């Protein structure tokens, strides 16, 4: 792949890989295999079907296909046709999908009949709903857009427009991966990270594998990886957490296990290293830019680093007065890279707040170690100021994660007119734990002093989104509702 200059389009790049490595598998699942030699023809066949079904170039198409391989083939055909696209999640409600389609001016919604041939469908296998939409003239330098939605743990989900050129630029962050890498992405294709990474795999000439049969147990995943000779697996932290108790088999040491999407404590990393694999990567990424930093197996320690910046990413940590703070000091994280989006779709206010002077400010707090590794301390919005004392959620969570009875923790503020922000922590205890709230508060006082939480919420499960991020706004709402009921 070229380092600089005009990037090939997805189809051009696929044709190159097809010529150089025709036997290499591009897409594989328990049911189907597509080699790079076959891929250009199959994409062109999909394109023909979509054109015959009435999909027009330069329009925006909603894709409602949950199966990995047909979804990616449709996505590649739409890119070739110069159509923008957005995923219409099959799990979302019809009213939510309708609002989303209207907001994006979607011209057609595309799905496939059940039982259709995943690789060689006919035009009749596609169900196309044409919608009323505003005709828009494409600009001369039009590059089809893949609209991705952000995870939306803090506010409503934002729409992130990543055009084909930026998507191609993202792929150059993966130059460090060996040629011919073979990946399993356990995130569903209908989620933004699941779709983007599968597309990026194809652009890079990698093999993108999908599990389509059998329950997703740890044993089945390990067998699937071994059977298909995969070299890396991305598994969302929520799934890893679910597998932890039943993980009797370790991954082959040559297979890299990647995870991320939320803070992953040192205690949890130790459990993964002990039970699953020593070849663990912890990623810090953003929909707005893709991969920001990546902690390698040798980087894990109690600092909970997310590693050095990914190749091509310019990363900084600054304060209110200093653009760059000293190593170890906490400041606001900023970043830029070639594949970064220019702003959010339809949201100039949030765009102005987050994209400033060519940098993207995600709203996270972080510090850099002396050797340049990034440590994330949570969201700036979540930082609590209690009677003038700055308290970071991560320091509270780290203290509780080290407690032998605690399985997971999430610190968040309760707003106070008098005191500013009062720290509270929600805890998920380990099975069979008998510890009381009073004992946990005493523990916090001993470990954290004034910086400790003033209230403990014990929950069976912390509320999390599909990527495993704790939904702190839900926790705050839950506490507020409880307090309203208890109000004297």
């Amino acid at each position, binding site marked *: 792949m070229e380092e600089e200059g005009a990037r090939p389009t997805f189809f051009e790049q696929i044709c190159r890989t097809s010529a150089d490595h025709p036997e290499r598998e591009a897409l594989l699942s328990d049911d189907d295999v597509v080699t790079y030699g076959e891929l250009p023809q199959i994409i062109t066949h999909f394109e023909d079907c979509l054109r015959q079904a009435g999909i027009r170039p330069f329009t925006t198409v909603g894709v409602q296909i949950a199966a990995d391989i047909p979804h990616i083939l449709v996505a590649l055909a739409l890119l070739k046709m110069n159509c923008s696209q957005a995923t219409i999640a099959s799990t979302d409600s019809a009213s939510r999908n309708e609002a989303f389609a209207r907001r994006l001016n979607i011209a057609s919604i595309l799905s496939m009949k059940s039982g259709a041939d995943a690789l060689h469908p006919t035009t009749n296998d596609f169900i196309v709903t044409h919608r009323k939409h505003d005709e828009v003239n494409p600009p001369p330098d039009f590059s089809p857009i893949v609209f991705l939605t952000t995870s939306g743990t803090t506010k409503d989900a934002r729409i992130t427009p990543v055009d084909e050129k930026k998507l191609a630029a993202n792929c150059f962050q993966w130059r460090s991966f060996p040629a011919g890498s073979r990946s399993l992405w356990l995130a569903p294709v209908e989620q933004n990270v699941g779709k983007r990474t599968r597309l990026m795999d194809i652009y890079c000439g990698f093999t993108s594998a999908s599990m389509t049969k059998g329950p997703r147990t740890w044993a089945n995943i390990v067998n699937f990886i071994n059977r298909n000779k995969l070299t890396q697996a991305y598994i969302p932290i929520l799934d890893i957490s679910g597998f932890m108790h039943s993980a009797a088999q370790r991954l082959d040491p040559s297979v890299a296990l990647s995870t991320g999407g939320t803070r992953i404590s040192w205690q949890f990393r130790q459990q993964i290293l002990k039970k699953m694999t020593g070849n663990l990567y912890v990623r810090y990424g953003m929909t707005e830019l893709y991969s920001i930093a990546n902690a390698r197996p040798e980087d894990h320690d109690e600092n909970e680093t997310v590693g050095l910046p990914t190749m091509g990413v310019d990363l900084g940590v600054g304060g209110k007065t200093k653009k760059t703070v000293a190593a170890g000091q906490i400041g606001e994280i900023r970043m830029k890279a070639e594949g970064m989006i220019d702003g959010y779709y339809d949201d100039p206010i949030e765009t102005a707040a987050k994209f400033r002077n060519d940098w993207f400010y995600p709203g996270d707090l972080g510090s850099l170690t002396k050797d340049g590794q990034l440590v994330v301390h949570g969201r700036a919005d979540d930082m609590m100021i209690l009677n003038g004392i700055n308290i970071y959620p991560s320091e509270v969570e780290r203290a509780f994660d080290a407690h032998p009875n605690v399985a997971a923790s999430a610190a968040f503020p309760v707003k*106070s007119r*008098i*005191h500013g922000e*009062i720290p509270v922590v929600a805890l998920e205890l380990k099975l069979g734990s008998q510890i009381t709230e009073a004992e946990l508060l005493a523990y916090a006082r001993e470990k954290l002093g*004034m910086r400790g939480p*003033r209230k403990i919420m014990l929950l069976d499960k912390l509320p999390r989104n599909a990527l495993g991020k704790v939904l702190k706004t839900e926790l705050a709402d839950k506490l507020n509702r409880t307090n*309203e009921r*208890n109000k*004297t």
Partner: protein
Amino acid sequence: MNAAELRKMVVDALTHANAVGISDHPSREAFLEGQEDISLDDLEIDSLAAMEFCIYLELNHGIEITPDELEEVISVEEIAGVVRKCISD
């Protein structure tokens, strides 16, 4: 909230605030029963404990009191009076 519940809430809040002397004060039970008061001379309530007392009441009972409002009081019964006034306001 009746007077006994109010006294219990104040004692709980002082205990959480680490007001030294409240947990094992000889008149604690008598205070809870409304028979005796406890002088603040017997307790160690510094500015930190006063702040923690206020945070406890706000977080657990939605009662907003500032540490300043406790500056002039000289007994636990008077603290209960400040809280009672806040509730009735």
